[in-house]
């Protein structure tokens, strides 16, 4: 459609706050990253590899944030994801490391657990209409508790324990050398990514398509927009909500596998507060907590911003790592304020 100032029906062209938010998110990321490149140019920040590392480190978060976005679109929330990751990682480490179970069955088991976990939560939220916050909080406690029940020790997965999993974790997908840089010894170092990056990007693409082009995806928006109307228009709101939580937990399990490939360990304290990072990434990416508005491209950039903040703080080296939290806090506030300003502008335009 042509973007003319006055539409043919004479309705005023209103300020489209939602696209604006996405644009701001992307712009913010670019600005932050460019600033990093300028300020820390001698610390390797401008190298493509540093950028790729963002994806490598945050592959798990990206998957989880995609699931979170789907849930938040329905107006819900899923705070169980951090614990579910810990439980999945512990299960992987315990199964492969201690029990010597092969890699493939363990991965399938973890994915299946994600579906079951999500189905239980989704059933309670969708069909029994319990507050999502409460249900997933129970999930949070259960996951963390179960992690400790499986094993209280920290288990590292080494090469001897599982050759295949180890090789996945250390597989490098090398990009063409001209993208790389020459180090001090004159050797060209080609940039690389890990398989987890491909998984995460695939998740983003698939969820993007699902949200845009499937009936289920559109139903998520409808349910978040107005659940009563959605029901009246013939959507099965309960089922859709349940499916959203199944999707979230399933993507969380995929995220857990990425996370585990990254850390190669399982421990009770792992991924604590991960749910908060995922929610923050979604919100910074333009997803409204009230539901009905948001998309995964925004959430992807939300994750990258999250990662960039940490990266900036670590590269600096002198700052306390807690400054990353404060920066995130400031950003979140800024975005929430922006969202409500846009909402106000929208109301006034009407």
């Amino acid at each position, binding site marked *: 459609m042509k973007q003319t100032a006055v539409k043919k029906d004479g309705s005023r062209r209103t300020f489209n706050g939602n696209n604006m938010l996405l644009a701001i998110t992307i712009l913010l990321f670019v600005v932050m990253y460019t600033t990093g490149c300028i300020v820390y140019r001698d610390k390797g920040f401008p190298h493509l590899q540093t950028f790729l590392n963002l994806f490598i480190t945050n592959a798990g978060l990206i998957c989880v944030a995609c699931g979170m976005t789907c849930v938040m679109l329905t107006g819900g929330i899923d705070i169980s994801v951090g614990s579910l990751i810990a439980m999945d990682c512990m299960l992987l480490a315990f199964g492969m490391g201690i029990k010597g179970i092969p890699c493939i069955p363990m991965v399938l088991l973890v994915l299946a657990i994600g579906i079951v976990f999500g189905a239980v939560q989704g059933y309670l939220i969708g069909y029994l209409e319990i507050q999502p916050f409460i249900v997933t909080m129970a999930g949070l406690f259960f996951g963390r508790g179960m992690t400790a029940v499986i094993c209280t020790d920290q288990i590292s997965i080494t090469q001897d324990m599982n050759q295949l999993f180890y090789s996945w974790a250390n597989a490098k997908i090398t990009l063409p050398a001209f993208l790389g840089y020459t180090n001090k010894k004159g050797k060209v170092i080609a940039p690389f990514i890990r398989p987890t990056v491909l998984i995460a990007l695939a998740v983003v693409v698939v969820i993007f398509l699902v949200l845009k082009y*499937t009936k289920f995806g*559109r139903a998520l928006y409808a349910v978040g927009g107005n659940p009563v109307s959605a029901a009246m*228009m013939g959507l099965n709101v309960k089922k859709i909500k349940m499916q959203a939580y199944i999707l979230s937990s399933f993507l969380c399990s995929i995220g857990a596998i990425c996370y585990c490939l990254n850390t190669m360990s399982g421990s009770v304290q792992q991924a604590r507060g991960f749910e908060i990072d995922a929610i923050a990434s979604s919100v910074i990416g333009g997803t409204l907590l009230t539901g009905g508005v948001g998309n995964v491209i925004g959430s992807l950039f939300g994750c990258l911003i999250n990662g960039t903040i940490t990266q900036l703080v670590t590269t600096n080296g002198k700052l306390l790592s807690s400054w990353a939290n404060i920066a995130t806090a400031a950003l979140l506030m800024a975005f929430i304020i922006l969202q409500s300003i846009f909402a106000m502008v929208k109301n006034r335009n009407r």
Partner: protein
Amino acid sequence: MENNVLIEMRNIRKTFPGVVALDNAQLTLHRGEIHALMGENGAGKSTIIKCLTGVYERDAGEVYMDGVEGNIWNHSTMDAQNIGIATVYQEVNLCPNLSVAENLFIGRAPTGRFGAVDWKTMNRKAQKIMDDLDIQVDVTRNLENYSIAIQQMVAIARAVDMDCRVLILDEPTSSLDDKEVEKLFRLMRQLRDKGVGILFVTHFLEQVYEVCDRITVMRNGQFVGDYTVAELPRVKLVAAMLGKDFDDLAAIKQEGTGKEKGEVLVECKNMSHKGTIKPFDFVIRKGEVVGLTGLLGSGRSEMVRCIYGADRSQTGTETMGGKEVHIRQPLDAIKLGMGYLPDDRKAEGCIADLSVKENIMLALQARQGIFHRVSEAKQNEIADRYIKELSIKTPSRETPISQLSGGNQQKVILARWLATDPEFLILDEPTRGIDIGTKTEIQKKVIELAGKGMSVVFISSELEEMLRTCSRLYVMRDGANVGQITDENGPITQEEVMSAIAGGDSHEK
């Protein structure tokens, strides 16, 4: 069954705990007619519709529909939709965050390869539907960008496109202006000519006579009669609805307000709220009923919000009883003896999950402060007194207010303010969306209160009602107070007021 009959409902009975909502109700809808369903609040109009659409399950009775075998029991709105019964409610039941096209097609979107939603086809089809109905919208834009009227028409378009044969419109016009209503009527006539049976619920008598073919009147959950429009003149319709000889509304005379004016109670000088209302002066005397008139959006509500402190005034002074007052928030106003009944009772007025009693007690308790709790016995006494005095129809004082009909909810909120025994009461559209009987009761009550010395500000979109109740009118236009009309030189006439609202210079200051 007669050949032309589309829907026949007989001997419908529906009870709720403590209330018989429908008793032997009946309804017949023909093909290709616009059928008005009339009755006071609590007459059972909504209930019988909900029994038809499957929101409620009836206790007893038969429902037959042309082309459908046997007695129909709809268990959900989906069941009803599947046999071609669609409903458009007063509050639009669509998703504001989706595009117009999606709202038309959600749940049944056209799909292309791999089962993906085919946006192109969907937008094209949607545009065609809207063009055919002569509704000018860009279907790719979000629904929230359009007015309520357009949204309602989108809802109707959706129903029509789903091959509905019965279209139920539940008070679709209460939030529309005249032009929008006209558009809606044109659409309704188009559909009627295509053979759709339309059931139209409204409180506006004029609209019934403008657009409807037949009228079914209900009262107290019972069927009163089924008439053609021609055989039921207006006065008879009202009589049928009220169940008594029409106590001519005009007969309420301004008893209390005509007498000698009391002293000035509240005076505002040069008050304003940035962006909503330009500086205004306002005076009200004891025992006076003052009206604020003007078109919707002219600043009527904004002005009283400013006086009451719901919006803070940035300029000017306010005095009450001769002393200057500084009202920063509604609680200050309550403590000074003001009461404010807001115009949007769902959003600002009643607290749906609380009982009738608790809703009545709210303002009084707020004024007393939480440490001076009103005793249970006292609360019961107050609640019972106002339930009786205002004849609020409720099974008991403990019933959640959400279970009451609109008019009765309004009475509860009125009772809330009366309980604080205010000197100064602001009523913003107290009679909107409620039936004539309750309207009259509220108007009578207002005049009675003024007679006892209370000062009342009365806002209404219905000019007639204002003329009946108010002795002085402030005229609002475009966010400014542009003048006043008094009845000192004989009664105020409608023409006088309308020319003032429209901007006739005779009443300018």
